[in-house]
């Protein structure tokens, strides 16, 4: 987290759907009079160019002018810069390409102005000015490299280092420490402090965040993060003067699901990652940009690995999905990648125990069995963490064998994949910020998709948006109205009888978020049709705004429905004689006949292996290149960060090999070939990093539903334990600790 990180902050949102043209700042030529009179001469002269080099904004940030008339010009180091009104001096300098050092300022938090490191000189100002807090006025002349500004920075740095312990060798933040970087760049070479430094008692914030509060420089970033972004007001600045401490006063653990982000935010080593403590230095680590698969958000992460081991996971900036944050589950589940791994193909012998065999034997056995079974008795289930390529391969394989009984976990046994808008977040995670009323049906975003919840909270905080929630009583970190617990509330809303309906109908951009937990219900079609009726009544589905969203639970669901993993019959499990589980651990196998032959292809020895007859080891998401579609329909790819374990292979390669051994050879041999196969089925999955909006909305095209909702069954919670949702998190020790100590009882 050094200046490099400083430099990599994108200032303003670049809307992906290109609704507003970003304006790159170019050097503006200084012309004194409009060339009315001597146009010829002016043209001949071209434009008098000041000999300043072309300035690019810091880290390629782009400026968004919300109101093109409201543009003011300031001068940064003599260089003129056009900025929207209301920007601070620091932001103006960033656009001008000047990186001003700071500790307490963070672009996503409120302004504190207490570190004083951002002091710059402004003409006609008697004192240096805290650039993070000072709004830029028209015609201001800002100077960042004068002796006064430099002296100010050196002085502030000296003060900060006065009470800072000499912990660099033992501090985890060494190498990525803002204090280290800025003292090298802006500090003086010697200090004058000869007294005794103060020390502070460490606080216990839980199993995830390690605190060494002596190192704290009281920038209050963590306090502001906890109050504003995470919504839990746990941390505060206690005491005063040099005895100030950041703490919770009473012994309280940080139970928020976003608590790990304070590790990134803290500029010094006061708050660090407890599982990663003393494990590695940041220069030893190789960062691989990848995608998180623990939930359907698809947060962008960077997997830091050293050799074959994943050492930690840190967030990547993605304005449209996760901004700069990731949930605790995403951040800390990586140690599950080292435990309970399947590394060799195994066959269950006659005595019930597994025996390690070679790939050839395992595939031969599977191929033999699959030919002895009738096509309609072959069933395939794709797991939560499956990527699009492997699901495509599985579907093709099963279809070639004559069966169409394939679905993805979490989609229910009768998913409706006809219209894309019926199963993705049509508004887009970024678009939720424009909503002014939310209706959450059967979904608890805090546990299901923490980043979506953070976005909702951001909207509620910024615009006081109203939130109505239908479902079991749950913990929210923003104000919400609990409208009811079951489908009868939906009926009331659709008929306009419920008091919340007036808020919904008066909203300019209402957003309805339906949880994917509803997919498992028998009356889901009825529920969806009622919700669509509500949406139509409140005009939530318009050409410019589609407020009807589905919040998916698993990383694989959206791609599965895009690829058409819809089973032929709902009762496939009961009649199955051959079951192919591709990483599917949470499927209910009670109804499976006892003589069914189960093949489990996955990376962890989780619940799926108990019933398996053959185990085929596959690689986890950090070891393969796979395409995942998140809940808003944006396709993203993971990149292999570490080599895979043992004899495991990529999922789709196993199925391709199996198909060859079974005699029904699939027509693709390489990743590009399978991706071109995907392009014939769901070309949006190949449009990586772009959110593909659904073309048709469900309200106009879905047929009338005859069934009634089951009013006796209230909505349930889809995610019981936030920390243990899939095979990797269940294998993780850190998640087990979190679940034991941090889960809200």
């Amino acid at each position, binding site marked *: 987290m050094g200046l490099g990180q400083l430099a990599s902050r994108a200032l303003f949102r670049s809307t992906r759907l290109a609704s507003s043209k970003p304006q790159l700042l170019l050097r503006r030529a200084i012309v004194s009079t409009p060339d009315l009179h001597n146009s010829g001469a002016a043209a001949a002269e071209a434009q008098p160019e000041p000999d300043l080099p072309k300035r690019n904004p810091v880290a390629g940030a782009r400026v968004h002018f919300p109101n093109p008339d409201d543009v003011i010009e300031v001068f940064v180091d003599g260089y003129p810069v056009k900025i929207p009104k209301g920007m601070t001096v620091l932001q103006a300098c960033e656009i001008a390409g000047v990186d001003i050092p700071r500790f307490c300022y963070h672009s996503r938090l409120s302004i504190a102005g207490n570190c004083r490191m951002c002091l710059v000189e402004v003409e006609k100002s008697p004192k240096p000015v805290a650039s993070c807090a000072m709004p830029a006025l028209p015609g201001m002349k800002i100077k960042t490299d004068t002796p006064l500004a430099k002296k100010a920075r050196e002085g502030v740095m000296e003060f900060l280092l006065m009470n800072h312990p000499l912990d660099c060798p033992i501090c985890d933040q060494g190498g990525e420490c803002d204090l280290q970087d800025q003292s090298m760049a802006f500090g003086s070479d010697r200090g004058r402090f000869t007294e*005794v430094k103060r020390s502070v008692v460490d606080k216990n914030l839980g199993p995830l965040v390690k605190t060494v509060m002596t190192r704290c420089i009281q920038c209050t970033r963590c306090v502001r993060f906890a109050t504003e972004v995470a919504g839990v007001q746990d941390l505060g600045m*206690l*005491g005063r003067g040099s*005895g100030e*401490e950041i703490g919770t*006063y*009473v*012994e309280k653990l940080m139970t928020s699901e976003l608590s790990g982000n304070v590790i990134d935010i803290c500029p010094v080593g006061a708050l660090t990652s407890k599982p990663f403590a003393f494990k590695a230095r940041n220069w030893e680590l190789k960062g691989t940009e990848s995608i998180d698969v623990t939930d359907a958000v698809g947060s962008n992460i960077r997997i830091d690995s050293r050799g074959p081991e994943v050492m930690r996971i840190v967030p990547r900036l993605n304005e449209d999905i996760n901004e700069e944050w990731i949930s605790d589950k995403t951040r800390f589940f990586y140690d599950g990648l080292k435990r309970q791994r399947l590394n060799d193909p195994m066959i269950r012998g006659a005595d019930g125990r597994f025996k390690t065999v070679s790939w050839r034997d395992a595939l031969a056995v599977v191929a033999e069995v699959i030919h002895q079974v009738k096509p309609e008795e072959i069933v395939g289930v794709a797991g939560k963490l499956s990527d699009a390529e492997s699901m495509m391969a599985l579907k093709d394989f099963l279809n070639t064998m004559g069966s169409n009984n394939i679905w993805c976990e979490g989609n229910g046994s009768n998913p409706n994949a006809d219209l894309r808008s019926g199963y993705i977040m049509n508004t887009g995670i970024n678009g939720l910020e424009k909503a002014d009323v939310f209706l959450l049906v059967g979904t608890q975003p805090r546990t299901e998709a923490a980043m979506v919840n953070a976005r909702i909270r951001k909207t509620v905080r910024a615009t006081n948006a109203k939130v109505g929630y239908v479902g079991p009583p749950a913990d929210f970190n923003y104000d919400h109205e609990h409208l009811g617990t079951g489908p009868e509330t939906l009926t009331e809303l659709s008929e306009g009888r419920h008091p919340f309906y007036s808020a919904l109908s008066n909203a300019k951009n209402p957003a309805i978020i339906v949880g994917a937990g509803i997919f498992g219900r028998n009356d889901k079609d009825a529920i969806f049709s009622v919700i669509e009726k509500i949406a139509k009544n409140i005009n939530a589905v318009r050409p410019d705004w589609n407020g009807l969203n589905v919040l998916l639970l698993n990383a694989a669901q959206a791609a599965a429905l895009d690829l058409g993993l819809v089973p032929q019959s709902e009762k496939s499990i009961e009649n199955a004689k051959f079951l192919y589980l591709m990483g599917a651990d949470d499927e209910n196998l009670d109804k499976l006949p006892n003589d069914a032959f189960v093949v489990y292809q996955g990376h962890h020895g989780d619940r799926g292996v108990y019933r398996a007859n053959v185990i085929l080891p596959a690689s986890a998401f950090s070891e393969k290149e796979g395409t995942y579609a998140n809940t808003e329909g944006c396709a993203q790819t993971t990149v292999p960060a570490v080599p895979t374990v043992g004899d495991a292979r990529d999922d789709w390669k196993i199925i391709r090999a199996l198909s060859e051994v079974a005699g029904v050879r699939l027509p693709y041999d390489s990743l590009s070939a399978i991706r071109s196969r995907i392009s014939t089925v769901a070309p949006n999955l190949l449009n990586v990093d772009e959110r593909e909006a659904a073309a048709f909305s469900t309200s106009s095209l879905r047929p009338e539903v005859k069934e009634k909702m089951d009013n006796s069954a209230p909505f349930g919670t889809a995610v019981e334990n936030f920390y243990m949702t899939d095979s990797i998190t269940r294998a993780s020790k850190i998640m087990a600790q979190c679940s034991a100590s941090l889960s809200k009882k």
Partner: protein
Amino acid sequence: MLGRLASQRLREIRQVFRGLPQHIDSPDNNPDLPWEFTDTNKEKAKEILSHYPSNYKQSAVIPLLDLAQQQNGGWLPVSAMNHVAKVIEVAPIRVYEVATFYSMFNRTKVGRYHLLVCGTTPCMIRGSREIEEALLKHLGVKRNEVTKDGLFFCWRNGMHDNNIGTGYFCVLLLHNTLLSTTEDVTPNRVVEIVEALKRGEKPP
């Protein structure tokens, strides 16, 4: 060595009689103990809240904390701070922040009479150290300790009370709302004052 003495001094001074910036649960001070304003104080609290705009109830935190402290005999248990937080509708941590910031909010038990001896240079010249010694010996406690019957004593460094400002000795007494100083004392006078307090009389 000097450094160690200096840090020890600093710790003594800044320290425990007001409470650390961390709360440690004890049987008589933990969040599970119920605490509420008395009925009269509830009225007073409502009156205090009326001074501030209704959407900025948190501005009333300091007067309400003062009221709570007076009700509780000169100190604030954590449950009182939680109750005040509920009254002004903020998270408890915000109240904790305010209470730890101001030195007159005691977060540990203080005695009924809180005696402070000014220890600044002018008073020291006039012998405040002897006064302090006499007081300590008479009461039988060390600095920042509470006597058995709840008399409390501490030695304030660098405190020029604004009543005084005369550079004479001062002994400042804090007894709930009683805030009085006695200046120009001698060691004998101090003992007399303490005896008077024990009897329950207000010293002149």
